């Protein structure tokens, strides 16, 4: 099999984003995808919080390191990478969180010097998919994006050119529906306080929402993609269940987005198909989604593909996937010991032995 990782067991792969629970990150399913491809080498978990649940899973990471927040600057980030390298080698890093991707892109050369490979977009590609660029970059290329306005003052809601209902979005994250100006004003202040300015007002498109997990080759070609329709949506808007669909128009749309962006690496497209069968691009997340395990279940192990690509190995594009494959997410309690968390917090790292031997730890 072209995505077999059996022969790469000498590698050490680091993956970030081990949070599960109500707002899960993609790290756990990415590691599981890599292991599913037969990888028997070392897995390192990179986390920002000692309570990310994936840390405490017995069968996941061989060691876990605590990272400084990307907002702390790339120097601190690189220092921690060097600290990790003093304990273990790293061959590949797969970053999975919106806020850290740009840091990894900017540090690409420094990482390379240290023998660490990534498979990420360029800074230009990354910035073109930003919420602030979507509605200027894509519509001239025939890709529909809902009407969007960028607000720096709540008074601007008085002159809004789009009609309610709208989505009011934070500059980096979060989106809430507003049915009138009063609701929009309240959301403006909330999102301004949380994510800063601008706050984004976007026309709500009435239709069905779909998500596509994909990998682009950086030259405008799609290397793999799996679309899903969410079946279970939590009150935070997170998909806790979904089913793989097969829609040629959606496939063509995703290929066009990747072609226009020349996207390299993993990403997730959020789209809506309206009642007139028009497809609107809502958002491009520059990393795998938390539901990427569904892609492997449907026949495309995209995380394993990214490992190969990071190593510079040519892979054939995956074109088939199984519609009707579904996932339902569950959460469970992991029993550990407070000393395990304490050890990670004070030493910035944990070895698997400490994770699995938690009963002896206090």
């Amino acid at each position, binding site marked *: 099999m072209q995505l077999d990782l059996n022969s790469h067991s000498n590698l050490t792969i680091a993956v970030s984003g081990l949070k599960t629970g109500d707002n899960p990150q993609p790290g756990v399913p990415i590691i599981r995808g890599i292991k599913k491809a037969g990888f028997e080498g070392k897995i390192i978990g990179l986390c920002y919080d000692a309570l990310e649940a994936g840390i405490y899973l017995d069968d996941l990471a061989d060691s876990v390191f605590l990272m400084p927040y990307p907002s702390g600057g790339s120097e601190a980030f690189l220092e921690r990478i060097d600290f990790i390298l003093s304990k273990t080698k790293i061959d590949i890093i797969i970053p999975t969180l919106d806020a850290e991707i740009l840091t990894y892109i900017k540090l690409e050369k420094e990482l390379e010097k240290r023998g660490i490979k990534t498979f990420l977009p360029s800074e230009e590609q990354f910035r073109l998919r930003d919420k602030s660029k979507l509605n200027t970059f894509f519509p001239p290329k025939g890709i529909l994006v809902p009407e969007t306005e960028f607000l720096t003052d709540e008074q601007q809601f008085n002159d809004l050119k789009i009609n309610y209902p709208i989505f009011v979005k934070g500059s980096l994250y979060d989106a809430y529906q507003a049915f009138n100006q009063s609701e929009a004003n309240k959301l403006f202040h909330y999102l301004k306080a949380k994510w800063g300015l601008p706050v984004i007002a976007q026309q709500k498109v009435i239709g069905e929402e779909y998500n596509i997990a994909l990998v682009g080759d950086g030259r405008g070609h799609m290397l793999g993609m799996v679309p899903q329709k969410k079946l279970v949506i939590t009150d935070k808007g997170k998909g806790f269940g979904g*089913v793989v669909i*097969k829609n040629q128009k959606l496939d063509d749309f995703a290929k066009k987005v990747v072609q226009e962006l020349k996207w390299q690496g993993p990403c997730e497209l959020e789209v809506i198909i309206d009642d007139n069968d028009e497809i609107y691009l809502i958002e491009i997340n520059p990393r795998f989604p938390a539901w990427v395990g569904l892609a492997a279940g449907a026949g495309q192990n995209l995380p394993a593909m990214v490992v190969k690509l990071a190593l510079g190995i040519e892979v054939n594009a995956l074109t088939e996937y199984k*519609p009707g494959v579904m996932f339902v997410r569950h959460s469970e309690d992991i029993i550990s010991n407070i000393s395990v968390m304490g050890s990670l917090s004070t030493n910035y790292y944990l070895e698997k032995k400490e994770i699995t031997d938690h009963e002896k730890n206090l």
Partner: protein
Amino acid sequence: MSLNTLKQLAINDSGFAFNPTTGKSYHLNEVGIKVIAMLKQGKTLNQISEILFKEYDTEIDALNQDIDFFVMQLQNLGLIGVEDAIRPK
């Protein structure tokens, strides 16, 4: 619209139908499964009524009405075209 969308519908023995193009799913009863199977084969609404009339103890008018209502639902769901939901006089 032709019957293409309906033909893509995956239906299991218990009457669970999945539209792989949209991700939507539906539940069908025994008669609904038979009507869809016959529509997929290209049978007209009158032919479907004739076949089901022989199979079930019912009045033809009531049967026609039920089938017409069912295909109207299929049309509303975008699974068949307007022309497929009209019974020729």
